[in-house]
């Protein structure tokens, strides 16, 4: 395992190498980040065998991969589904390679191993040529076209310059706009402050004594966001009503429950603080 990580420090370079004493999970995460999927990772493991890919030991490769995945899961790293699919497939391949071949239509373990080896070679080949391709002298970077072209009416191909990409992008954007038009119709149920003021006003008359703000909130339907917006609206409404002199508010400390009481029934200014203290 440690070897494996060390190898990849060399391969995937900077970010991994920079981490010296990080926890195992973070290291694993960084290692995984360096790969473009499970096949890419298998290929890197395969290169570690330091043999020609045509002579690679698939069994050993499967073991390495399964160990890696097991380690990764041990540190409770969430692995993408395709890594797990690959692990399951490799475990199956392993059993097919180790146990006697059953009778049937299934491809033999060796065929499956050969197919995997082929895929690795093909991916390796593509990575190789991608590198070669981008190492070539490139137009606009290494070589340059005429910097100040002179417009000539040469091909009579088209007065308007519009490419297939322009056309497809225009259509895609148009469709996206259209779909977004549908979106805006979707109703969003939020509690407004006006509603809360009305509701509080009508309820307060029936609740002459101190009561928590929470007890004024409407019942449970709607869930998360609606409840939160109701709380926010009711809180704002109590401030509004207090400003208008119609309610009194009390709170024992930060984040403590907020108490509300109606103030219409002839309460005198003086006893607010006394009331508050008497409740302590």
């Amino acid at each position, binding site marked *: 395992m440690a070897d494996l990580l060390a190898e990849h420090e060399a391969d995937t370079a900077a970010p991994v190498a920079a981490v010296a004493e990080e926890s195992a999970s973070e290291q694993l995460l960084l290692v995984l980040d360096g790969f473009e999927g499970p096949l890419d990772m298998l290929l890197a493991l395969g290169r570690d065998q330091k043999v020609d890919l045509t002579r690679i030991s698939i069994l050993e490769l499967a073991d390495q991969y399964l160990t890696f995945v097991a380690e990764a899961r041990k540190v409770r790293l969430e692995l993408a589904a395709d890594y797990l699919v690959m692990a399951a497939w490799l475990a199956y391949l392993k059993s097919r390679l180790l146990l006697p071949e059953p009778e049937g239509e299934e491809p033999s373990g060796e065929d499956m191993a050969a197919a995997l080896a082929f895929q690795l070679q093909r991916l390796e080949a593509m990575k190789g040529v991608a590198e070669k391709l981008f190492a070539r002298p490139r137009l606009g970077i290494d070589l340059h076209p005429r910097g*100040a072209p002179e417009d*000539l009416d040469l091909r009579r191909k088209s*007065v*308007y310059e519009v490419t297939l990409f322009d*056309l497809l992008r225009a*259509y895609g954007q148009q469709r*996206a706009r259209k779909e977004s038009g549908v979106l805006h119709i*979707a109703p969003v149920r939020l509690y407004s402050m006006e509603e809360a003021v009305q509701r509080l006003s009508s309820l307060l008359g029936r609740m002459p004594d101190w009561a928590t703000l929470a007890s004024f909130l409407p019942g449970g339907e709607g869930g998360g966001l609606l409840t939160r917006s109701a709380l926010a609206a009711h809180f704002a409404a109590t401030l509004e009503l207090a400003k208008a002199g119609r309610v009194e508010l009390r709170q024992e400390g930060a984040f403590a429950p907020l108490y509300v009481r109606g103030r219409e029934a002839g309460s005198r200014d003086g006893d607010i603080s006394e009331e508050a203290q008497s409740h302590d």
Partner: protein
Amino acid sequence: MIKEVTDAHEVEARIGKLRLLEALLFASTEPLDEETLAGRIGPEVGLLLEELRAHYAPRGVTLVRTGGGWAFRTAVDLAPELRREEEVSRKLSRAAIETLAIIAYHQPVTRGEIESIRGVATSKGTLDLLMEHGWIRPGKRRETPGRPLTWITTDHFLDHFGLETLRDLPSVDDLRAAGLLDSRPVLLGLGATADDSALGTGDET
């Protein structure tokens, strides 16, 4: 002996500088002034420029001095044969590109349908322009009240966009897969109340 070797080196260095000078002038979007060139080539750039000018003088491309700088230009006497036209590459308006795309994807399609898809009125000039350019033509009339004219794309349309048949146009799913149908879900915070599934597929621009 020694003198000769030095000369060979000098000749080589001189050729190298001429080639670089040639490439710089060719690739530059603006005429380059002697000072700038001297910075890249060296103080002898004046002589080299004259040498290049002499080399190109009889050719189809000439090195000319314009303003304070030097630039390659096609030979003046070839102008009639090169026949410059100012309007070679005008950009097609966004409305026109969109209309063309909708006709391509929805043909045969009436003007009314195009407008309802785009959500805005289509000016007559847009269809005229596309037709003038040979990309669209009228198709059959739709057998509905008013018998509106439908529009379809032409062979020239396929030709211009390098398509063999209309079936080779990427489907909406292909566009989405290629990232061309840009769907960015937003308002995720609000997803909590309203219908999540509706918001999840929602797009924003």
